[in-house]
């Protein structure tokens, strides 16, 4: 399997080992019933999930905030190698059709790699983000709603305590 070059300024790697089989880890990522319980950090919830498990297939989730606001997201699978590697992106929708850009949501590609380790599994999650999107988001957050002012005040306050 080819190694993917990462950029530390825009990309993340999470490396974990868990004492269950790769088949089970795969199931938790690819079966809606098993993905929904853990996919959203509490107190947020995943309230809907659709998975069409094939390259070009749809990965659809709806996250719900504690106040009941809903945030739907549609992605597309790029690689599906059972129990080994799953790649999807939020930049594309079903059948590789490009998604419309959503404000304040930089697109990403996520790569999940599974490796059998004794009785358990080592899994890697690599999340790749486009640098232009991150920069743009920082700027938006800086100028909208006086965010920049709040941040300056916060820095001053935190330095004073």
């Amino acid at each position, binding site marked *: 399997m080819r190694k993917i070059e990462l950029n530390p*300024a*825009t990309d*993340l790697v*999470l490396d*974990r080992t*868990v*004492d*269950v089989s790769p088949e*089970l*880890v795969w*199931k*938790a990522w690819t079966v809606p019933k*098993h993905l929904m*319980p*853990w*996919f*959203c*950090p*509490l*107190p*947020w919830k995943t309230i809907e999930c659709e998975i069409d498990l094939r390259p070009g297939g749809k990965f659809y989730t709806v996250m719900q*905030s*504690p*106040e009941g606001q809903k*945030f739907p997201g549609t992605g597309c699978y790029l690689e599906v190698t059972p129990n080994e590697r799953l790649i999807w992106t939020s930049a594309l929708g079903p059948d590789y059709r490009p998604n419309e850009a959503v404000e*304040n*949501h930089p697109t990403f590609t996520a790569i999940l790699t599974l490796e059998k380790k004794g009785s358990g599994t080592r899994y890697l*999650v690599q*999340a790749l*983000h486009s640098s232009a999107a*991150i920069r743009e*988001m*920082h700027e938006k*957050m800086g100028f909208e*709603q*006086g*965010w920049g*002012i*709040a*941040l300056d*005040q*916060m*820095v*001053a*306050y*935190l330095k004073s*305590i």
Partner: protein
Amino acid sequence: MILFLALGDITRMAVIRELCRGPRSVSELARPFEMALPSFIQHLSVLEDAKWIKTEKQGRVRTCTLNPDALALAGGWLDEQRSLWERRLDQLDDYLLKMKKTEKKEKKNAKD
């Protein structure tokens, strides 16, 4: 995204600005807003869940302070993404161990 989504509201933004000046009690924070107290407290709990603020109760007064970690997160969008993934994968690992137990039980029941 949770950190920033929590901020997407005029009331919560104003609360953060006020707390930048120092700790405040819930009633001090609520005073400028024409809003029922339970609705205001709902906003505070969103900020608390998103780790923007901490609250502490002493006697009958609940005091809110900014969470210093929020600054680091707000400064680094990528760090926020990392923390989101960490929390998500913590939940995944817990869920996987539960799945393993359930499957074992099901296999055992099938045999019996």
